[in-house]
């Protein structure tokens, strides 16, 4: 299936920030010099002031809609009501990019309020691909799917995660939202090589990069786990991995995400400026060569 390419589109290959309610007012007042912003689609599904505010911000900044609740990996199918709500937000905001996750969050009509890991199996792959097809048909556009951060692996998984990501992009024509922090978190949690993971993603499919902070937690069994809590600055190892990603993919729209203990707008813009400087240094990568 072929869909209009939304990349580079109205979201430029520059640094953006995740917009949260805490910063609505500051953004409206200061109209910060930032290339674009991304929001969680689920936060704007009602009417009233929230979406009106986003419509105003949309006049100055391209917006990316990032979904966290569609549950592309649900064995029992997508919730048509949720898909309809997403379409309504998209009609009002006309986003430059739309994305979702390689994860699931709904089973037996219960929303489990987290991006849960999928067993990496042929069955999961065909379920996800069917749902990506469904979303792209409903939205009449290409979407991006984000690689997960995970804390466990299933006994019955048979496909390496990077191959799973590449296969979804190949089979559906969707793009990949490469979350560099997620790659780092999962790689450390599961003893993978993060550089090798990056190297196996198809450059032409990369439509966006996410960067965020994470935390480290000790478990009762004495092991430590990296937790993707988006509650701090991007760590040096992740910045280094980001440079590798840029070397491989070329300049890609890059987002700073911060969801817990959200800092001042200035801190977010500072993190985005670091990404922006690295983006400015990036040479056109294999992604552009592939796309040409």
């Amino acid at each position, binding site marked *: 299936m072929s869909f209009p390419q939304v990349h580079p589109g109205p979201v430029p290959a520059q640094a953006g920030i995740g917009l949260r309610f805490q910063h609505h007012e500051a953004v409206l007042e200061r109209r910060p010099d930032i290339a674009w912003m991304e929001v969680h689609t*689920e936060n704007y*599904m*009602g*009417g*009233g*002031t*929230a*979406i009106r505010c986003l419509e105003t911000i949309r006049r100055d900044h391209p917006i990316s809609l990032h979904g*966290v*609740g*569609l*549950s592309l*990996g*649900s*064995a*029992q199918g997508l*919730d048509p*009501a*949720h898909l309809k*709500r997403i379409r309504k937000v998209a009609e009002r905001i006309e986003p430059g990019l739309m994305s979702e996750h390689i994860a*699931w*969050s*709904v*089973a*037996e*009509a*219960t*929303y*489990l*309020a*987290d991006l*849960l890991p*999928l*067993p990496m*199996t042929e*069955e*999961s792959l065909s*379920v996800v691909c069917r749902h990506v097809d469904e979303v792209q048909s409903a939205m009449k556009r290409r979407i991006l799917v984000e690689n997960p951060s995970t*804390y*466990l*692996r*299933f*006994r*019955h*998984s048979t496909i390496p995660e990077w191959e799973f990501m590449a296969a979804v992009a190949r089979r559906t024509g969707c793009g990949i939202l490469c979350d560099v922090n997620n790659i780092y978190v999962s790689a450390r949690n599961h003893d993978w090589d993060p550089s090798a993971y990056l190297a196996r993603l198809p450059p032409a499919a990369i439509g966006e990069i996410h960067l965020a902070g994470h935390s480290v*937690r000790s*478990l*009762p*069994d004495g*092991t430590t*786990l990296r*937790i993707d809590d988006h509650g701090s600055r991007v760590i040096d190892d992740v910045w280094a991995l980001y440079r590798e990603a840029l070397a491989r993919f070329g300049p890609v729209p890059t987002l700073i995400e911060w969801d817990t203990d959200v800092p001042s707008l200035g801190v977010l813009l500072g993190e985005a400026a670091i990404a922006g400087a690295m983006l400015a240094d990036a040479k056109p990568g294999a992604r552009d060569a592939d796309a040409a």
Partner: protein
Amino acid sequence: MPTLLETQCAMRTWLVDGERDAAADLLADGISPDRLDIYRNTFVANATRALRLTYPAVHKLVGDEFFEGAAVAFIAQHPPRSACFDHYGEAFAAFLAAFPPAASLAYLADVARLEWAVSRAIHSDDVEPLDLARLVALSPAEQECVSFVPHPSVSLLSLVTPADAIRRAVLAGDDAALAAVDPAAGAVRLLVERGESGPEVTRLDAAAWHFAAELCRGLPLGMVLAELHGTSAETAFAAHLGAGRFVDFRLAPPELMASLSPSEAGP
């Protein structure tokens, strides 16, 4: 090999019901079942945060520990059904009314009812108000039969405690005002709706509340106006129209009109 559905049902059973065995059996060698706890904690924390955002006054009235205890019990009984958290927690007031640890706080469920209405006023869909020209174009006989569809942000609440005064004082952190509220002061009748700059809560007297409630329930206009005679009804009706509280109408069939008398149509 377990199917995807079996995997997801086992995970759901762990997250919602706390039964870990089925999910633990699915984990790869070397993956401690402790790691499942991370997901369960996130599920409960995110659902609790959604309740806290919708019920800030209930939260302030009872404190962190009590609120979290109530939330955990509520989430187990009423897990979220939709990924749109704005829709989550409607049953919380009824849950609190029957929650034994809250039995001594008679006003708590009323405050929760009010906060749910406020949440609806904040989050409900944007809908254009009724185009009055459509109403004017009807014949007088048809106007009698008009049954209105209220704006989704509008709620009419009849509460046995002065929950509006309690909520206002609590959210303002005004201890003196809170101390001055007499929880036994009697019932309040409220109109809650989306205003220009946010949710608005207005007290109505009994007659005005019944008038608004009957119109919002879709009782035919002719019947509701006949119940409340005189200019006060017309003024109130004009105010409802002017405030955009109705978004659409249907025409009740004349035979229904004939069969209904105002006394039979009460709640």
